[in-house]
Every structure is written in C-alpha cells, then in structure tokens.
C-alpha cells in the first residue's frame, strides 16, 4: 500500500468488490428469478454451501474446475426442485421450507464434504486486466475472475429475457397474479418450479465460486451468510436483475472496505462497515414501504411483500 498511499483504498475496494460480489451476484440473480415467479427461497444459503462443496469435490476428483461449476449448479437445481415441489402443496409456508432446506443443505454439504477439507483442487482462472501496470496493487485489483464476467453479462441478459421473451412473460404473470395467469393457461406450479430450479442453478454456481476462486478452498465456514443476504439484496435491487449487479458490487464493496481501511491503519469500526448493506436495505424499506401499497417493482404474489 505504501506506493499508492490513500489511493490504495479505493483500488483495494474495487478489487475486493469485484471478488466479493461474485457470489452475491449469482445468488441474487437466482433469488430474483425465483421471487419474480412469486416464491421466496430462503434455502439458497444451503444451496450455496452445497455448491461450494460439490464444485470443489468434482474439481478435485476430475481436475476440471469448470466441470465442478456445472455440478455445483446441478446440485442447486436439485435443491431448487425440492423447494418448489414441497411449496406446490397447499398450505405450505415457503419461508419455513426455505429454512428447512438451508439446514438440510448445510448438513448434507458438511456430511459429504468431509473428505475434501484437506486436498487441493484446481481453481478457476482469472483474466489479468492489469497487465499494463507496474504496480502490484493495480494488477491485483484488476485481476477479474471469469465467473464475475459471466454474471455481469447474465444480469442484463436476464433483464432483457424477463421483459422480452415468452418465458419472461410467463414468470412475471405467475408472480404478479397466479389466478390471472392460470386463466391465461399458464401452469402456475410448473412455471414456479422452473423459476426455482433455475434460481438454484445460479446459486449453486455462486457457491462454486467460493470454493474454486475466493477464498478458494472448501471448509465448513466457507459462507458468511451470502445466501440469506441475497434475499435482502434482491429487495434492495427492486427485483431488477441489472440492479442486482450494482447491489452485489455495493454489498461486496462494503465487505472490502473494512480490510482496505485496515491496511492504511484505520482499524476501528471494521465490523460496522459489514453491517452497512443491511442498515441501508432496512432504511430503504422504511423509506419506501407503506401500509397502503406494496413495494414498487415487487411481484405481488410474493408473501413477503403483502
């Protein structure tokens, strides 16, 4: 940090934001898709950790980190399918099912992941956008992992798809008014199943980032709650995939602010910076909620916005 002095802080925050935001980005895009179809899945925390475990395990066993990413996504799809099929039954509370799946996913990942705590698996590559610079800080900050780039392309892609394709219309119709969608001939439960399965796929990929890129190993404390935070993040982003990208960068950057300030000698309030995204989300909800109407942009079938 000496060479750059205070300039090192924004640079480190930028690098940290890109790195830290990737799991947020994938989990929140997945949650966004699920919530758009009218269900909330609090189980993505379990999906994330399951993805981290399976991705790492497969990468270790086969030597291919990308195969690990694919398997992580597939595990997420299976957990998503479990969530959707239980929630499709009458009178079942989707929040409770989500928490049950979170605990189940965590348990299963710890159970199956025991043999993978020690060994080293091949990791995902990064693209060195900072090759032109002499400074190691600049190089470190601009080393962008490939999954982030995929997510950054996916976010506007999802936004476009939600508003310009038949699939997108089906998801929004089911999420805004299930009865009307049923009248229009949509199979409500099947659309929600697909929305939750696709959401699980993305969350699983987000998990594989944790074990295959940063922090880059598998252990039982690998997630710091990113899966649950994604729920807040989606609300913060107003159910807009593109805003999810910026919100993920903000959440990731807030996590990177503490360590960056610490490196220039500011150590107090480290953990309070970590709380910033939640305080911000809560203030945003207080400012925009009303007892008279629901949040703007919210799918009106969603239990938590009624």
């Amino acid at each position, binding site marked *: 940090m000496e060479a750059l002095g205070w300039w090192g802080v924004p640079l480190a925050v930028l690098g940290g934001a890109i790195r830290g935001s990737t799991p947020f980005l994938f989990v929140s895009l997945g949650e966004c898709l699920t919530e758009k179809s009218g269900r909330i899945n*609090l189980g993505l925390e379990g999906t994330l950790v399951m993805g981290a475990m399976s991705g790492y395990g497969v990468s270790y066993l086969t030597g291919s980190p990308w195969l690990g990413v694919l398997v992580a996504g597939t595990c997420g799809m299976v957990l998503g399918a*479990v969530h959707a099929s*239980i929630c499709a*039954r*009458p*009178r*079942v*509370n989707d*929040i*409770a*099912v989500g*928490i*049950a*799946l*979170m*605990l*189940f*996913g*965590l*348990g*299963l990942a*710890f*159970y199956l992941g*025991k043999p993978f705590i020690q060994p080293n698996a091949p990791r995902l590559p990064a693209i060195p956008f900072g090759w032109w610079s002499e400074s190691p800080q600049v190089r470190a900050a601009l080393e962008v992992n490939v999954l982030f780039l995929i997510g950054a392309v996916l976010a506007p892609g999802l936004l476009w798809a939600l508003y310009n394709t038949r699939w997108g219309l089906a998801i929004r119709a089911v999420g805004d008014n299930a009865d009307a969608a049923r009248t229009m001939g949509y199979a409500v439960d099947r659309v929600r199943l697909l929305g939750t399965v696709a959401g699980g796929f993305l969350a699983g990929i987000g998990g594989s980032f944790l074990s295959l890129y940063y922090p880059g190993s598998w252990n039982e404390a690998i997630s710091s*709650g990113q899966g*649950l*935070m994604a*729920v*807040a993040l989606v*609300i913060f982003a107003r159910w807009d995939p593109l805003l999810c990208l910026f919100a993920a960068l903000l959440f990731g950057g807030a996590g990177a602010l503490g360590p960056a300030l610490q490196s220039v000698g500011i150590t*107090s*309030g*480290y*953990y*309070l910076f*970590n*709380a910033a995204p*939640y*305080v911000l*989300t*809560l203030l945003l*909800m*207080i400012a925009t*909620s*009303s*007892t*008279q109407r629901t949040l703007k942009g919210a799918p009106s079938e969603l*239990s*938590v*916005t*009624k």
Partner: protein
Amino acid sequence: MRLLGGSPRGAAEALTIPAGALAVSLILFGIFVALAGANPLGVYETIYSGAFGSWFSWQNTLQRATPLMLTALCTALPARLGLVVIGAEGALIIGALATVAIASVLPGASHWTVITAMMLAGMSAGGLWVGLAGGLRYYRGVNETISSLLLNYIAIALMNHLVGGPMRDPLVLHRPSSWHVGERNMIGLIPGMDVHWGLVFGVVGCIVTYVLMQHTVFGFAARIVGGNVRAARMAGVPVGRLTLVTCLIAGAAAGLAGTTEIAAVHGRASTSLVVGYGYTGILVAFLARQNPLAVIPVAILLGGIDAAGGLLQRWHDLPDATVHVMRGIIFLVILASEPVYGRLRVFQQSVVAPSNGAVPREAA
C-alpha cells in the same frame, strides 16, 4: 385433549400426522445411512440411546433443548397474528450483549440482584429488537420477515464490533470475547441435575405464553387478527398495540435465551453465540404448529437428535454432520405433511374442526 385440538379427533390428528411424518423421515434417513454403508437399525438405536437412553443423555438433551424453546417462541407467538418473524437469532445476540453490559455496571451488587437485572436486561433488549420489526410492520408496512432477517445481521455485526473493541476482554486470546459476567453471577444448575435453570425459564415461558395465547382476551384478540385483520379492525381490536406487544414478548423470549446462554453457559459474549439457535427455533415453531405448549416436546426431540451427533461418529464412523442431515429430512417431511391435515377420513367429523394454530398461508 383440549390442549391440542378442541375435539378428541382433532387431538388424535394433531398427534398422528407428525408421528407419521416422523416415521417417514426416519425411513428416508435409514436409506441415507444405508447408502453410506452403515446399519440403519444400529444408527437408530445409537441416536435413541444418545438422546434419551440414559439419565446422562437426557440431561444433555434438555441442556440443548433450552435455548430452542425460547427462540421458538419468538416465531410462534407472532405467528398467531399471521406474522412470520425470523429474528430470534438477532434478539438472542442483543439479549446476550445487554446481559454482559448490565453485569458489568453492577460490580458490587448481590447475586440475586445481578441475576434479576441480567434477565430483565436480556428480555427488554431482545423485546425491543423484535418489537422494532413489529412496529415497522404496523406503522410503516415494512415486511416483518425481511426486517427481522436484516436485524439478525445487524445484531451479529454489532456484536462483532463490541466484542472486538469496546467490550473486548484482552485476556481472552483464542477468539474476540467480551468481559466475563463474573463467576459469582452465573446461573447455577437445577438441584440434582446437570442442567442449568434456563430449562425452567424455557418451560415456564412456553406455559405462560400458551395460557396467554389460548386462555386470555389478549390471545383471543391476537387470533382474530391472525384470522382476518380487517374483521379484527371492524370489531375494534387494537391491531397495532397487539402487534407491538406480541413482538415485544416474542423478542423477550429470545432475549432471555441470550441471557441464559451468557449467564449459565458461556459467561461472555462471542461468536460462539451464533450457532443457529434462532434458525432452528423457527423450525421448532413450525413443527409445533405455532403452539407454545407443543414447542416443549419438539424442542426436546431436536435437542436429543443434536445430542446424539457425537456418538454416531464414535460408533458408526459417520460424520457428526449426519444428525444435521437427519434434522433437515425431518423438517422437510413434516412441512410437506402440512396438506394432510383435514384430509384423512378417520379424523373427520360431520363438522370439520378448524386446524388449530396453523399460520394462514396468505397472511404474511
């Protein structure tokens, strides 16, 4: 019988369906451990003996069930109003921090003064924490599920901040921890048992809130709100005050769990408080179908499964996470069994009794 259903058939239904779901989940779990190469019957036996097989394992089980009873109330009570509160984790932490803080400003006070002060501090801090979510719900229309989830993370960050700085005990090296509340201020064990008094707080808390919700005007009004808010308003029920007071009591229960975790177990606040009691409590509440009295046996059952974890590793060479898988399977199967209520011919009378204590699906 009146405790469960309202009619003998209702009570039979309320016992048979969870028991059936439990049996189904045990079969699924048996298949799971069989795939891992273990003998399912042997595993069942080990879990039973590890949880309830001896006086020693019973005490271990009850110890683990204690915080779950109190955190479950944090979800079960607001559920009567149709609210889904998931903020027990945060309320427990805030209650624990308040407990440590109050003990440190009463250095010379007598044992009982400090213990009373700690309990009051934990309960009021936890109560205000969840009360905030309730107030925001009523006055600003902020969804209580999301705000209580956010408050959990704010509480964790606040605790990390305090135990890493202003409240840090520099003598504890292995992890940032707060000051100790003092050995002489610790809540002791129930005479003749290796279980602390927190168990009594938990059981009393469940019974008192059961009476409150089932046998008082307050509870009756709360259930009307849970049934139909608009009808409750028309009938002149003070919805706002009920929401606030219920959330205060709910948070106070979780805050009390924080007090007992500090004053009977850990002595100081640290990340060892963040072990998911709040989230497991949510499921205890749902499995108990939001009935405070049913919370007691459900919490004991889950505490027992937890207690058996170590034995599985020792006797069957299964990872200790096996019990987490088992817990997950039980939760999922019991939640999936919800639609069965009111559908089995055996339990039907000519007039169908309304299922008691379930959260209306659309009410959040």
